[in-house]
């Protein structure tokens, strides 16, 4: 009998297959709603459990045998971070499904692929077995390739192939790591991929060598590489603008809302727990990388002329905060990075949906081709302003919480972090500049194109997708305590481990 977490993987897969059966095809979009709602429900359930019994231990643990000789099992379990990511995955997929509810080009295939993607991301977020994690991590490239490559824009093939090859290249080293881990555990009392056990073997990784180098040294870099490409961190980010620009709106939502979080999650779940000493040693360099991502992403976003590309670069900047916060080695920073991952999911999804709203009407995304849309589309303008402010980190909205915590963590961290954090505050200015400048160029001023005066405001379906995201941004911004309380034990345990390894 499978438990709730395995169900979040198995059910979407089953629904995806069902969606392909000809008689059931008209129901495909409802299957997608069902699958994502189920994920959301399980995530919320896990959250309720975490609220009732706070702690860093895994919840809803289940394990099904896969291969005894490999030491792999279909093991699932979530802690605060996993629950947050699972909920995010369900929510964003639900929102993306609503956004693509009227998809007319082979909708059954589209929704089946979305469900497959959901299953894979859920598996990544809930797996406590490294092999399952890796399998899902790689397998989700396939639905993503199809979603961008089939339903995307004019240059979708270029973007999709670039995305897949880039991320695949980023994670090949991780495969090597997995194999080395398998060899090592097999030699140290039984093969296993159980993440908690692997984490407890940190001294083994530090002491066992492959070709003269400790496993930990190369392993950390391998995981890092895979995660930094997914994150994406500068300079490994250039697949992102292409993918976002070419992907259809709903897929952009998934990409920004869920896919980028995989990189963050991998850092929190694999890189830091398994290789704490390396994590500590690399922290200053990663801090620099995070800072570069933050600033470079922000400046580049400022220089964009395409709305989607702009939001894509804002993602680069915002995900830089996750890296920076985690690297700071403080509870506040790590917590801020995790919260930022969640809230960026909401705000970037909302922004992409809003870009989709204007694209559906104007059929272009050039920032300077708009203007004054607040007149014919007041609701749109308000939502755009709201999402932009949330993304820019206005207090009381989601983006602020993570950003402020990262700043607080960075300022109280050791070494060069306070100085780097001071440099990172420039992004506060830049984020306001590129987002609100965009709002100005799109929504305010006189009408940019007289024909835009007849545009209809956001309809009910569009609002159904966007408004809940905005509401969540407000809730998290005003009262982040439940989220933070769920995440805090995880971050504390993580950092205790890291700082303990230093001694």
């Amino acid at each position, binding site marked *: 009998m499978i438990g709730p977490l395995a169900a979040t993987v198995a059910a979407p897969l089953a629904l995806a297959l069902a969606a392909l059966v000809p008689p059931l095809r008209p129901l495909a979009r409802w299957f997608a709603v069902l699958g994502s709602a189920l994920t959301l429900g399980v995530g919320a359930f896990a959250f309720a459990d975490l609220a009732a019994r706070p702690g860093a231990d895994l919840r809803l643990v289940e394990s099904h045998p896969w291969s005894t000789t490999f030491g792999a099992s279909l093991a699932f379990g979530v802690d605060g971070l996993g629950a947050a990511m699972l909920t995010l995955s369900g929510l964003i997929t639900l929102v993306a499904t609503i956004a693509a509810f009227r998809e007319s080009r082979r909708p059954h295939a589209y929704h089946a692929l979305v469900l497959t993607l959901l299953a894979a991301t859920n598996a990544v977020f809930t797996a406590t077995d490294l092999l399952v994690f890796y399998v899902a991590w790689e397998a989700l490239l396939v639905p993503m390739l199809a979603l961008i490559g089939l339903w995307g824009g*004019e240059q979708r093939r270029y973007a999709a192939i670039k995305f897949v090859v880039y991320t695949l290249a980023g994670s090949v080293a991780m495969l090597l790591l997995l194999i080395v881990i398998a060899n090592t555990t097999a030699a140290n009392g039984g093969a296993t991929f159980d993440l908690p056990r692997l984490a407890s073997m940190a001294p083994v990784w530090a002491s066992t060598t492959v070709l003269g180098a400790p496993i930990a040294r190369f392993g950390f870099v391998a995981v890092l590489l895979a995660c930094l490409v997914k994150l994406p961190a500068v300079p490994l980010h250039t697949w992102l603008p292409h993918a976002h620009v070419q992907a259809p709106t709903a897929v952009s939502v998934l990409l920004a809302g869920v896919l980028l979080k995989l990189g963050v999650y991998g850092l929190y779940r694999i890189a830091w727990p398994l290789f704490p000493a390396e994590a500590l040693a690399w922290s200053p360099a990663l801090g620099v990388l995070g800072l570069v991502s933050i600033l*470079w992403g922000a400046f*580049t976003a400022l220089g964009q002329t395409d709305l989607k590309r702009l939001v894509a670069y804002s993602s680069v900047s915002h995900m830089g905060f996750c890296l920076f916060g985690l690297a700071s080695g403080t509870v506040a920073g790590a917590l801020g990075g995790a919260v930022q991952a969640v809230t960026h999911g909401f705000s970037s999804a909302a922004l992409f949906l809003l870009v989709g709203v204007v694209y559906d009407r104007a059929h272009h995304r050039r920032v300077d081709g708009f203007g004054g849309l607040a007149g014919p589309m007041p609701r749109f303008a308000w939502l755009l302003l709201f999402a932009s*402010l949330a993304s820019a980190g206005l207090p009381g909205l989601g983006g602020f919480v993570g950003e402020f915590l990262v700043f607080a963590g960075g*300022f109280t961290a050791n070494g060069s972090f306070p100085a780097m954090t001071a440099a990172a505050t420039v992004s*506060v200015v830049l984020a306001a500049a590129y987002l609100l400048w965009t709002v100005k160029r799109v*929504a305010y001023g006189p009408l940019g194109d007289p024909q835009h005066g007849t545009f209809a405001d956001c309809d009910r379906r569009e609002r159904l997708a966007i408004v809940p995201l905005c509401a969540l941004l407000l809730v998290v911004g005003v009262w982040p305590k439940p989220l933070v309380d769920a995440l805090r034990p995880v971050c504390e345990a993580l950092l205790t481990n890291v700082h303990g390894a230093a001694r």
Partner: protein
Amino acid sequence: MPNWLPLFVWLVPLSAALVTGRLPWRSAGAAHGIATGMLAATTALAVWMTSIVLRSGGTFAGPHFDWLDLGSFSLGVGVMVDPMAAIMAVIVGLLATLVMAFNAWYMHDEPKAARFPWQFCFFVFAMLGVVLSDNLFLSFCCWELVGLGSYLLIGFWFDRPAASADPEYQATKNPDPRGVLEHLLSPAHAQLKAFVMNRVGDAGFLIGIGALLSLMVTAGEHGSVLDFVRLPGAAAAAQSTTFLGLSGGQLLTLAALGIFCGAVGKSAQFPLHTWLPDAMQGPTTASSIIHAATMVAAGVFLVARCYAMFPADALAVVGWTGGITCLFAATIACVQWDLKAVLAYSTVSQLGLMFVGLGAGDEHGGRAAGIAHLFTHATFKCLLFLCAGAVIHAANGLQDLHRMGGLRRTMPVTAWCSLIAVLAIAGAPAFSGFYSKDAVIAAALAHATAAGGAAWGPFLLAAAGSLLTSFYMLRWWIRVFAGEPRDDSLVEHAHDPAGAAKWVLIALAPFALSLPWTTGDWLDRALRAPHAEHLHAAHGQAVVLASALLLAGAAAALFLYWWAVRRDRDTAGALASRLRPLHRGAQELWGIDRLQDLVFTRGLGRWFAGRCARVDLGSPSRLRALDEAGDRRAADPLSLDGAIDGLGRFFGGLARRGAVLHGGRTGAYLAFVAIVVGAGLWWSVLR
């Protein structure tokens, strides 16, 4: 004091915003009525709160929650009331109520009027948050929300085109060059500029909070370390702490300067002042509250709030910044021909004066003087702006001082009320400005005398600014209200505000007198202004000096704009051409706007960001080739993305070389095998 009272004072405007924002009927009148009522209730609660606090004289700590607990420290949300906060809350509430009431008349034929109340109430809520907050974190949050409120209000007419493309503006603008970049002058741009420039300050604010945090955490403090009540503790901890090679004292200075940087942004101090004149693009009623009790007041208030952690060297920076701004803005105000621009630069100048006061240090009465000037200035500047609004309303949007004059005949109430306010801002005896400005100058003088050297700078700058203040304010009043009409149709059509709006002006006027502030020295006692012998002496000198400055400035204004004009002499013009470089410089806003536009908007925002985009994804031609043709040969190897593609091209080039061997020639295949085998045999056997 009831525990809920400060919370209510804070949250009633928020509920007003929610109620008026979500009214089921889109009636502007109802929204204004409800908002006015609720703001009045806020004011009443604030008065009640103030009466309690003033009676007890102490600090009242309201409810406090841990917003987030981060282990080594926590971020709190809570309120705290001391006399300064209580009086500020009353002033905010009172002015907001009056402005809201005035706005009902001012916007009676504005189609978007129904939006105004909720944005305004939200703005007030945010400002009261800054005022009542008990810790730096909540202050920062509300501080940003204040920025949002101003953003919304400034962009009230968001659909207006830039001034250069606005026929209405072009028809009514004054003929003089103003140093304003017309293509960038629109509500939509002004709101953006205000927000972004405020964020520049906020970045500094964040650094300040960060420095304070690291100071407190390093000192081993726990819990809600950003509480204001613990700031003296931070100053004490600074003596014994070092962090990353910085001594605690340096860290404390850094924290103080960071927080002051936020104040520079919000209170429009040099060099982050340029957003404030642009913010005039909003409704004049919004300007009246921005310039008076909310927004710009927040910076001064925050510095006063954090006064305990400002070491002497930080205060010197505060004083100098204030002094420079005071004189700098005053020079610009002297040559402005726009009705509201004069007032805008006067606000900047007066805020500088407040910082001069704050920079003088508590022991010289600077803090109390700065705050007192904040209070008095709030009332008379609000009145001035409402009067200006009445004039603009009467003049159908005309704001050009060249065409005004003689309006006192048809707008007597407005004229007299504004004259009272002008006298107050000029610092005439018996007016409130005299009391507070005098105190500031006295404090600066006392500080300069005590500290000597560079400390004279702020004092002298403030004195020069005061001299100009009386000059340009009287000039303003004379050009608008006195003399003969320059445009008869304008004067004929003009009328005083109707109904409640008129009473709003009349109600505000008494606050421009010194009596309400000085009766029984209640304000000095509430602000705990120090009394010392050397301060009395400085006070005496300051009274003489301030009066002399007032007289000199007023005399110059009367001579140039009243006496000379009555004799049809263009003495002002002659003087301007005599002082041409100075005059031109001031008219061109000393080039700061242009410089900022060049460096930040065009330099960083367009050129540098464009460069970044280009380095990242490649040249526009590459992007076009990718977008339109999907041409992967569109190379830009100097860009990050192009380099990645270049890697692919490198492999492609290798492969094309390899195609020589895989080119379908059987002979080549066989020869290749023969060569490999021969080489292998030679290498392994025959070698």
